[in-house]
Each structure stands twice: as C-alpha cells, then as structure tokens.
C-alpha cells in the first residue's frame, strides 16, 4: 500500500470525527485545528487501528501532532 492509498483510507475514516468540516492537509493538527479531545482521539485511533490492523501505542501517538505525521506513521507501521 503506498502513501496515497493510506492517505485516502484515513481521509475516509476521519470524516465522522471532523465535526466542523475542517479542510484536511498534512499540516492540520488534531488538538489545535480539529479540536479532538481525549475521547475522540481514542475512538479515532481505534478506527485506524481496526482499518489497518495495527497498534498505535500512546507513546507513538505522542509523536503524532498533525495529519501528515499520522499518514507517515501508518505507512511505517504497515511497512514494518
């Protein structure tokens, strides 16, 4: 799976969590731009983990602040 495919699938998953309809770019931040609280983060991460059959531990989540970093992290986890 290449980065574009991962990006497309994550875009599909993020829609129900993107309540304000923020335009998603690589630099879009989860805490700032999307205003995700801890519960939303948990549900969103669970959706991605189920879609890609991966684990994104909280330690890894701490390194992910924006959308582009998330796509890169999923690509890396799928590649490992």
């Amino acid at each position, binding site marked *: 799976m290449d980065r574009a495919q991962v990006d497309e699938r994550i875009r599909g998953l993020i829609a129900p969590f993107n309540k304000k309809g923020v335009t998603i770019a690589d630099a879009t931040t989860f805490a700032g731009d999307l205003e995700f609280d801890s519960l939303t983060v948990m549900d969103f991460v669970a959706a991605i983990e189920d879609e890609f059959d991966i*684990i994104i531990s909280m330690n890894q989540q701490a390194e992910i602040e924006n959308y582009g970093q998330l796509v890169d992290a999923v690509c890396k986890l799928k590649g490992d």
Partner: protein
Amino acid sequence: MTDAASKTDLFSKFDPLIQQREALLASGLEDPFNLVMEKVLSPTRAICNGRDTILLGTYNYMGMTFDPDVIRAGKDALENFGAGTTGSRVLNGTYQGHREVEEALKDFYAMDHAMVFSTGYQANLGIISTIAGKDDYIVLDIDSHASIWDGCALGNAQVVPFKHNDIDAMEKRLRRIPEGAGKLVVLEGVYSMLGDIAPLKKMIAVAKKYDAMVLVDEAHSMGFIGPNGRGVAEEQGVLDHVDFVIGTFSKSVGTVGGFCVSNHPKFEIMRLVCRPYVFTASLPPSVVATAATSIRKLMTGADKRAHLWENSRTLHAGLKALGFDLGTEAPQSAIIAVIMPDLERGAAMWEALLHEGLYVNLARPPATPANMTLLRCSLCAEHSADQVQAILGMFERAGKAVGII
C-alpha cells in the same frame, strides 16, 4: 513580579482552570474542593464547615476508622514503636508491624507474597512502572485510575488503551501485539467514578489466551465483594488467574497505605527494584498496626457486608425512584454515581446537599469518563437504615431546589 517574568510564568498553563474556578466561586458557592472537617464524630458523621453532616463520600466502606480494636492497636503501636520510622522499607523502615500487616494480607488473600507501599497510589505507580519495561506492552482500560496511568507514564512500556470494559476492543489490541513481546493487562474490579464492575471472568480469559500477565486493582471492592471479601475477581471465580492484585488501606481498611499481593515465585525481588517502594519512608507503626488489625477483622465481617449491600440497594432504588440519572442501572458496588447535567448545576446541587447536612464527592472532568459531572456517593456499613432514608430526603429537597428533578 516584572512583566518580563510574567511572560514566562510557568503557571500560565493553569490560567483556564484558575478562571473556571474563580467563575464558579464568584457565584457565591462554597468551594467543593476545600471542605474542612472540623470534627469527625463517627465513620458516618462529621462537623463540616460548621455543620453536623452525614458522610456519604468517604470510601470508608466498612466503617473501620473508629473500630475500638483498631484504635487500640494504633495507640499501642504509637506508644511502643513511636510516631514514625524515618526510613525506607529496605533500610531502617521495616518494623515488626510492617511484617505483621503483610502476613495479614497474605492470609486475607490466601496468596504467597504481599508488599506494602506507603499509599495505594504508589502501589500502582511502583508495580506497573517496574514490571512493564521497554518493549513490553501495557493494555489497559481507558477509564483506569490516575495512579495506573501515572504508573504507565513513569515506565517505558508501550501503552495501549481500550474502550471501557470492551472485551472485543481489548482482544483486538492483544492480538496485534508483536510476537514475543511481554504483555501486562491492567483492569479494575470496581471503577470508582460510576461504581460499575468489570466483566473480569471474560476479560481475564482473553488476556490469558494471549499469554498476558494480569493486574487487577481491587481498591473499591476489598472487604465486601466476593465470598471472602477479596474482590470482584474472587466474586467471578477468577482470582487464581490474576497475577497481581493491587489494593489500598485507605478505603475498607480505614487508614492509609497500599499493597500488591501475588503468587509469582519471583515476586520478592520487587522490594529491591521498585523505586516508589525503595525511595520513600515506610508507613508509621501506628498505621500498619491499625491496618493489620482491621484486615483481620474484615475476614469475618459477613453481617457488616450484608448491611452495606442493603444500604447500596436502598439508596440506588430510592434515588432512581426520585428521578435521578444514575451511573449504573442496578447497584454493582458501594458507589452510586448521580449524573449531573453540567458542572454548574452539579456544583449547585453539591452545595444544596451540604446545606442539608450531607457530604458527597463532586467529581468532574478530567477525573470522570465522557466529561461527566458526578455526585459520587459511597456507602458505609455503619450507615443506619434511618440515615439512608434521611439521605434520600435530602436528595429530594436539594434536587427540587436546584431543578434537577
């Protein structure tokens, strides 16, 4: 303070909380987080901010705080061993009483090893951060207590939370953990915010299927859940599959301190490697003496247990009949959480109850799940049936005055 200094004030991150608090208190409300008990009359009554008050938010489930045998044991130890140990358990801080309370715990749980910490918080902090190392995985319920989260934060393990009490979500995460990695599943018997219990039988079976070790925090069940009061795991018949039970002396036992009991053959090494155990002073002699006496009395507290459950059922049914929204459909523990519509009305209700002469805990985010504001009631075996009826009357009057029912 100069302007330059205020720009880099480390406290500026707390400004939103300071403002929220000031706004709440500006309405003339008594500060819910600054209550003083001037006099404690019994496990269920105190003079709070000048008023004779029924205590319904102390986790003093078995009412052991004023037990005559417990008090006597504490006085004797204070006289004979002094006010404090002034030292670590591994240096000069292990007295006869520390051994005796660990023996009492081993007998209470019928387990091989018991290790006593200075608080329950430190027990979780120490055990979790020490046994789960780098490259190990901790799989835990998202509604876990702060001491569990802080134990995860203190260690280096990979931390993987799952949705509260969701067995499938837990299994999915266990299944995805790389082969060969160490796994620790952390659960609680009773979750203290809503007073709900965990389906430990099913969850522990899943954990064992994936070869995980299991730690269960039974802080809110000791003394009255399970045939011997050993907790929810005992009640559900799976205590033998729990690798580590964490508990506290600050609830049913009626004093302060924390512990871990285990049958792991290598458990004793924890005393040398667990930093929150090593690098702090041990409990005072009077505290371990009261704890040991209380624990041994809890082994034979069947009548008190039955009365506590009766209180829990009566209060739950009564509050439900009055129209309050409760944390659980049926009473599952000695905690009954009354869900408030928002923080403002929750705080107003808390104050109205205090004026009626009732103390409950006001719990609010981030301590609560789903950003709820809760009035958390914890019952005591020493609450009389009349007191429970009086409590229901207070809830009715306060609820109507504040407009919640």
